[in-house]
């Protein structure tokens, strides 16, 4: 262990840090293990019944109590996808652990109040192939068609299964699940008009989904390790053999050895200043995979919404502008007239977002930092507002602190979903791309927003996200059940695996630089918001990349204040900041490299989509562009965690469906609605 640390930190620095550690420890804690023996309070988990295989070890650290657990499968994250995977595995008889930093019903899935798409055919005749077509088109042909085929074919069965678990969907008069029309869904491959596919539970589908899945999971004997922060994957010989986690409650380190690890940690909205995600959406899974030397896919595709409330992050509906609300800058000018003379404020979302960003960049933003614009509604009659948009005055007062009938609401473009993540195949297995071939990483799976399967491609359609969670959560569980049996002997693991994570933890716990965690995080968020947001050009992205590099280096100078080990939120926030930084640098570097506009990634200097053929004209007679000259490919990004340097690679999109007779693949075309 010492040799390893010496290599990493250099001998003198190691001596300093070791002395510091010993001084600190002896001064503050005596010997931790001694203290633990003396104290009457037990460890957070209890070694009884099933968990009698847990044993304290000192293989990696004598300063921190380390406990080793053996399981058949470990699921990291307990949102929609994580819970579905966890109890799917328990149902199949596997001894499963679910390691989560939040209580399961507090995961961010609870905020997804809309609905789930499924081609059940309750309102009109429907076919899952039409849903398949809509999703492929929505992803701007960057989605892997086999994964989309799998998801849309399984959708009706998944929704019926949820309903059988007890999820109270809204019903029609006949008692069938009520489906409503929602964004981008059509009939007959786009030619049959709007499709009604979105099933919901009153106003709280995500909440209900999470509670249903949690309640269902309690039927099985999954071991929940709640408020355990997963630090890293335990990799050996290119295989994933488990997870190492910090118990936040008592500061002990736990190594979960398992043959199968499923990552379902969610997205990384918190890299941006304005986002709708919870403070806990910090891309932990993506960064664990990055530190293990694997790639993340399509990180530059981040979905924005034009009008999110400044500071709070809640989105204001487009109906405000539809009812007559206008966007104004600091000069009081209705700036949309300049950018979209005909549609004005009713222009499409990306036009509005880009216009707002340009106004802010050119110095006409509002507020003390001139970093947002105003949405004005007080010129409309209050009665009209109250009848057409009930509840908006309440929302504006609670989240923005303004009276809608007198003052404008501060808004700016806000992140709400990350299409990028850990690359997987349609079965949920994580893949790595070497020498032009996709290879499965043994023992590692991913599902949910953390994964990029990739069903959403360059742009996610509404109501597909919740579907993605349940289908791929179940897919991971099925794949594991298919290939392994419960109770298999675990592959051998070196005694000192995971020590870098503990060394890192220790380094952060005693960090004594000059910048606080919150300052570095704010710098990163502001840089990403101004340079890697909706409005992207080469020069702005380059400026952003350089700023991010210096912010990444400033992480060496970080200062934490809490030296304790019990519920050290300063330490956990700093670990989360490390994770956010890895996600942020990948996002901005991939965006700089992708010289085209596709889906959610729109560049001013390259406004067109660059595919292997020009699909606006007939393909006959066209020369197919070689792989490195077109952009219909997934970006894979690797980061060197110490220097922050990003390396990019590309992998082709999978254009064939799982079964050509059942469902023909959709050849690329120009995406227009």
């Amino acid at each position, binding site marked *: 262990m010492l040799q390893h640390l010496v290599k990493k930190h250099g001998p003198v620095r190691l001596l300093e840090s070791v002395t510091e550690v010993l001084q600190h420890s002896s001064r503050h804690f005596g010997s931790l293990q001694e203290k633990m023996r003396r104290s009457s309070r037990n460890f957070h988990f209890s070694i009884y019944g099933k968990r009698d295989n847990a044993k304290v070890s000192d293989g990696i650290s004598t300063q921190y109590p380390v406990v080793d657990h053996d399981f058949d499968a470990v699921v990291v994250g307990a949102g929609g996808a994580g819970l579905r995977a966890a109890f799917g595995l328990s149902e199949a008889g596997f001894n499963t652990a679910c390691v989560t930093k939040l209580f399961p019903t507090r995961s961010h899935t609870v905020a997804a*109040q809309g609905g789930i798409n499924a081609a059940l055919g309750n309102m009109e005749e429907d076919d899952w192939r039409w849903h398949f077509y809509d999703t492929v088109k929505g992803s701007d042909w960057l989605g892997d068609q086999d994964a989309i085929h799998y998801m849309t074919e399984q959708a009706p069965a998944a929704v019926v299964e949820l309903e059988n678990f007890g999820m109270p969907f809204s019903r029609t008069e006949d008692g069938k699940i*009520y489906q*409503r029309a929602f964004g981008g869904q059509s009939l007959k491959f786009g030619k049959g008009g709007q499709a009604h596919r979105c099933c919901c539970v009153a106003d709280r589908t995500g909440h209900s989904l999470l509670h249903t899945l949690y309640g269902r999971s309690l039927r099985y004997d999954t071991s929940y390790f709640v408020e355990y922060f997963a630090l890293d994957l335990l990799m050996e010989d290119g295989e994933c053999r488990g997870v190492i986690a910090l118990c936040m409650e008592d500061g002990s380190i736990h190594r979960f050895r398992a043959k199968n690890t499923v990552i379902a940690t969610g997205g990384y909205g918190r890299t941006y200043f304005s986002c709708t995600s919870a403070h806990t959406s910090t891309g932990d899974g993506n960064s664990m995979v990055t530190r293990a030397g694997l790639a993340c896919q399509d990180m530059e595709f981040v979905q924005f919404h034009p009008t999110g409330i400044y500071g709070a992050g809640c989105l204001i509906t487009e109906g405000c502008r539809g009812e007559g609300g206008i966007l104004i800058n600091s000069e009081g000018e209705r700036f949309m007239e300049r950018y979209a003379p005909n549609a004005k404020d009713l222009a499409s979302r990306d036009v509005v977002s880009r216009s707002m960003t340009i106004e802010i960049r050119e110095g006409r933003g509002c507020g003390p930092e001139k970093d947002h614009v105003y949405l004005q509604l007080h010129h409309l009659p209050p009665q009209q507002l109250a009848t057409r*948009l*009930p*509840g908006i*005055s309440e929302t504006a007062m609670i989240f923005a602190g303004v009276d809608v009938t007198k003052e404008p609401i501060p808004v700016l473009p806000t992140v709400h979903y990350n299409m990028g993540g850990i690359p997987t195949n349609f079965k949920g297995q994580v893949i790595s791309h070497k020498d032009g071939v996709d290879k499965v990483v043994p023992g590692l799976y991913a599902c949910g927003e953390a994964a990029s399967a990739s069903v959403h491609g360059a742009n996610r359609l509404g109501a597909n996200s919740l579907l993605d969670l349940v289908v791929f959560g179940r897919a991971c569980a099925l794949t594991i059940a298919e290939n392994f049996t419960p109770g298999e002997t675990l592959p051998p693991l070196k005694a000192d695996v995971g020590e870098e994570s503990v060394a890192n933890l220790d380094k952060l716990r005693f960090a004594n630089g000059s910048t606080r965690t919150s300052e570095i995080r704010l710098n990163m968020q502001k840089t990403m918001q101004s340079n890697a947001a909706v409005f992207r050009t080469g020069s702005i992205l380059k400026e952003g990349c350089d700023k991010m590099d210096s912010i990444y280096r400033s992480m060496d100078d970080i200062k934490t204040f809490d030296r304790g080990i019990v519920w050290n939120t300063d330490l956990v926030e700093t670990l989360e900041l490390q994770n956010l930084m890895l996600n942020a640098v990948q996002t901005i570097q991939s965006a700089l490299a992708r010289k085209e506009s596709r889906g959610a990634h729109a560049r001013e200097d390259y406004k067109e989509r660059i595919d292997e053929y020009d699909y606006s004209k007939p393909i006959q007679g066209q020369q197919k562009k070689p792989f490195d000259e077109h952009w219909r490919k997934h970006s894979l990004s690797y980061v060197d965690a110490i220097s922050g340097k990003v390396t990019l690679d590309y992998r082709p999109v999978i254009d064939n469906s799982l079964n050509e007779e059942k469902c023909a693949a959709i050849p690329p075309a120009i995406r227009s609605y």
Partner: protein
Amino acid sequence: MKPTGFLTTELRECMNVASEYDHTAFHGASINDDVTGVALLPLSSDGAFRDRFGSVLLAARNGNVRPGSSLLFCWTGGSEQSEAKKSLFTVWARSTGSSAGGAAKDRGPLKKAHTPRGRLDHPDEEEHREVVQRFPDDVNPETKEKGGPRGPEPTRYGDWERKGRCIDF
């Protein structure tokens, strides 16, 4: 035990003050010892404050102390029995608002304690205040959807709207 001259002066002062105000009068003493005992002594009919053994501790010299008053007795250094060690630390005379009747009737009406208002208090008021009303029987009259979202159709503007917020999912 007969009150010492010190006590009597203090008590008289206190009662003077008490008579001017209807409510509590507080008079701090100069002794800085810790309080070891406390007793609440009602004024008996002959205008004296008696301890629990019936001995007169203090006589109300000032006729302005109304019947029904009680005295909060705090003492230091010693139990109630050892009178020699008793010394008055602080006197807090509480007098009632009204003039006639016994102790209970003279008190003003009990004010209801200010407890935080719960969600289930006054349920009717809550329903009226709600911005988006529930449908009768939870069935949407136009679309006949049972158990659906309240208020106007959330997808009417192309996104999912609730109370002015756009929900992304």
